[in-house]
């Protein structure tokens, strides 16, 4: 197996949630809590099975996503991270992120989680507008977000991220501005703000399909995006990916790994891994995942090998996403001149970087550049 000199990341998927939200198409389930002990054991086992394949790779980040990883007990989370350290070459200064939903954490649990080594906390705040939270079928209230951040700060968290979703039913420029202001008031180190996307295979997707819920208005979402750009820029946040902002130095190292096309291992149901232009992924249903691992097999469900044109396309769109831009020399001038002239791209010393308006039309830019 080839080794990579590039620093790599480990993604661990925890598919348990207290409830399912109508818009979410992640591999997440409510009511499977009974599987937790087996699932934890399987994660440990899978790490052992996968570890040898990653010999020689040094890892600089771990990301526990879901689902809601904080639905696992703090001692289980401690066991998990400790085990990952024994199997993988994980640096002491690695960035270790855990996602949490406001109502699943307390000062007590957060203290234990931080102590277990999860130094970066990403909280699913989504909105500070009760109506929008209801439209998203989130069970928490704005107050829970403030309480969770306060608890995190209280136990010593110095790297907190808040996730926001804009453009749900009932969202207005006013409500979104309010959400941004409330978010800024909590002074998180990092903010992710996502335009609500309607996924067909979700309850919300079906509602939109049959006309029971309106589809998001893309023009409004564009305005909301530009508002976020403006307010977060004024507040001193660096816009470093389409949907991500951070205080300088607090960019998420793990997620940057995806966009910079660095390797990552994936553990857990449906988790993806990538190295050297090969991507592979685990079987998605938790039961199937458990059975495979318990049988002593790597639970791989599928893989793809990127040919040079696939890799090129990914390189272009990912570099554009993270505002690193792409060298103008990669393209015929005719491909980008109109974009520069219309203010969707700027030519930054031979590097084509999307403007804020350009980020909103990233698909068009990619298609226009690579057609």
């Amino acid at each position, binding site marked *: 197996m080839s080794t990579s000199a590039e620093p790599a990341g480990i993604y661990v998927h925890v598919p348990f949630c207290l409830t399912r939200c109508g818009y979410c198409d992640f591999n997440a389930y409510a009511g499977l809590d009974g599987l937790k002990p087996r699932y934890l054991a399987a994660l440990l086992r899978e790490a052992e099975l996968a570890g040898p394949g990653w010999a020689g790779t040094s890892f600089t980040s771990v990301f526990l996503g879901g689902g809601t990883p904080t639905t696992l007990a703090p001692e289980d989370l401690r066991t998990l991270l400790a085990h990952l350290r024994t199997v993988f070459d994980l640096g002491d200064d690695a960035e270790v992120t855990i996602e949490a939903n406001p109502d699943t954490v307390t000062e007590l649990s957060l203290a234990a989680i931080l102590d277990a080594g999860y130094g970066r906390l990403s909280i699913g705040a989504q909105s500070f507008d009760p109506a929008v939270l209801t439209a998203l079928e989130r069970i928490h209230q704005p107050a829970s977000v403030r309480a969770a951040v306060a608890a995190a700060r209280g136990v010593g968290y110095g790297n907190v991220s808040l996730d926001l979703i804009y453009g749900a039913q009932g969202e207005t420029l006013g409500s979104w501005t309010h959400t941004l202001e409330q978010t800024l008031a909590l002074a998180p180190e990092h903010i992710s703000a996502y335009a609500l*996307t309607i996924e067909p295979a979700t309850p919300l997707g079906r509602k939109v399909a049959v006309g029971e819920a309106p589809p998001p208005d893309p023009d409004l979402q*564009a305005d909301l995006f530009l508002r976020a750009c403006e307010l977060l820029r004024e507040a001193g946040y660096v816009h470093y990916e389409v949907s991500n902002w951070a205080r300088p130095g607090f960019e998420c190292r793990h997620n940057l790994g995806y966009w910079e096309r660095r390797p990552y291992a994936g553990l857990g149901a449906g988790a993806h891994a990538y190295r050297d232009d090969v*991507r592979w992924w685990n079987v998605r249903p938790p039961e199937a995942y458990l059975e495979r691992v318990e049988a002593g097999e790597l639970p791989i469900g599928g893989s793809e090998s990127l040919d040079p044109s696939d890799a090129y*396309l*990914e390189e272009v*769109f990912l570099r554009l996403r993270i505002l690193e831009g792409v060298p103008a020399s990669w393209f015929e001038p005719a491909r980008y001149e109109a974009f520069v002239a219309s203010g969707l791209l700027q030519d930054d010393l031979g590097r084509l970087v999307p403007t804020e308006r350009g980020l909103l039309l*990233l*698909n068009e830019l*990619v298609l226009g550049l690579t057609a």
Partner: protein
Amino acid sequence: MATDISRIRNFCIVAHIDHGKSTLADRMLEITHTVDERMMRAQYLDRMDLERERGITIKAQAVRLVHEGHELNLIDTPGHVDFTYEVSRSLAACEGAILLVDAAQGLEAQTLANFHLARDAGLTIVPALNKIDLPAAEPDRRAEELAHLLDRDPHDILRISAKTGAGVEELLAAVIAHVPPPVGDASAPLRALIFDSAFDTYRGVITYVRVHDGTLPSHARIRMFATGVESDAEEAGVMAPEATPVDALGPGEVGYLVTGLKDVHHAKVGDTITLAGKHAATEPLPGYREPKPMVWSGLYPADGNDYPVLRDALDKLKLSDSALVYEPESSQALGFGFRVGFLGLLHMDIVRERLEREFGLELISTAPNVEFHVFRADRMTVVHNPAEMPAGGDHDRVEEPVVYATIITPAEYLGAVFELCQARRGELVDMSYLTPERVEVHYVLPLAEIVFDFFDQLKSKTRGFASLDYEPWGFQDSRLVRVDILLHGEPVDAFSSVVHRDKAYTYGKQMVERLKELIPRQLFDVAVQASIGSKVIARETVKAKRKDVLAKCYGGDITRKRKLLETQKKGKERMRRVGRVDVPQEAFIAALRVDEGAKKR
């Protein structure tokens, strides 16, 4: 051996769709033992797939029944207004017609029109009310109606049920008793009328013929009068109901002829067959007419690479469809295609369907239009494509085809019928009461006004009770203008349309509103305009697209995102460019679609 001419009866059945013509034919096949009981199936004579699906008869054909020492030739007639000329040729092969009317529904316009055709052709009419077994039947009232029309005693109208067979024996007896035998001169040179033709992949062109004079031998050198084409016929026969070869067809007889020709255009409906050489007749039978397309449409392959496939497909279809005409044309927006002429919307639909089904083509068709005559300094130009109409005032006048329409409606809907016809630029000719409750109305209407949704409108305004028939009625001067549609300042030739000046604004507004919904947002505002010459009469704007980006793109999303981009890329490649504007195929198809209901007749 040819049958004694006095024992031959050639007849057809004039009936509205659904009034039971096919069922009656089935009963006749049974009663005369023409089809073995075990082989019998419903609608026996309606063979073609398309016919079955649409419930109408496209190809006329003749079947020989032998009954009570007589040879009865039942000649089928097409039941659609698109095929009026074919109907007239079928009638010309007969001496009599059964006028079959649904005892519940009464006379319909098409039946009436065909009845007039039959009577004008000198046919003996044998009237019959069908479906007398239905609870809704009103035989007494319908008998009055028919008696009034035929100027006969109501008691002369036979009452039958094709479904149960009741009265069908009597009907056959009436045909034998009342329809005169054919007249023909056995010693005169051969003259046989082609009343239908078909193309068989293995046997070439097969014509259905009625021998008037002379004898048509099974193998003979034959000549077509209208086309002058000669050929060696391979087989003569009768349908009984399967093809049964005979040695010869004598005067008055009806049958088929395998002509040895390979192209139906050489053996046209209405033409006369004679023998080649010194035994040729000198005069054809009267009534031949070149098939005349009434409706035109541009047909383009959705995939430009399919142009040769479309060309070959049309060439093949033409072999079996003598009414089909086409010429190549090109459109800036749609590429290379053909301007195709059809007898009517149904014919258009059938051709399109066959092209798509039999040749696997995906087609874009422009909105159908009629033929226009454009006059400029006393020179007349025939225009089949709206894009060829002069845009501004550089012509003196324009003529459009009109039709003579017969509408039968319950009297209570007369107002609604008037209103509709007036709105469609109709001129009332006359009206008469068939009964106190039912009125026959005649209008001269522009063909362009009725080819689209007129019939649907008529049906919906009369709760389905009115019926319509029409025949070509020449051309008339009209204030017609060409409305162009422009995208971002570029005219889209495929969207140009010729409409009456008073309707130009409404039409233009409708089109731009429709296109506004169909044209995807681009990276810039796109003006969608309708104009007459340089004057813009309607405008909408497709606002520039502002957002097209995936919010989340983490580990597993990247593959999905890449595939999404590849799909988007393919979609873009399939789009047509009009100036700077990308227009998907679907938008063309949807914008040019004729409302579906308009084609069902």
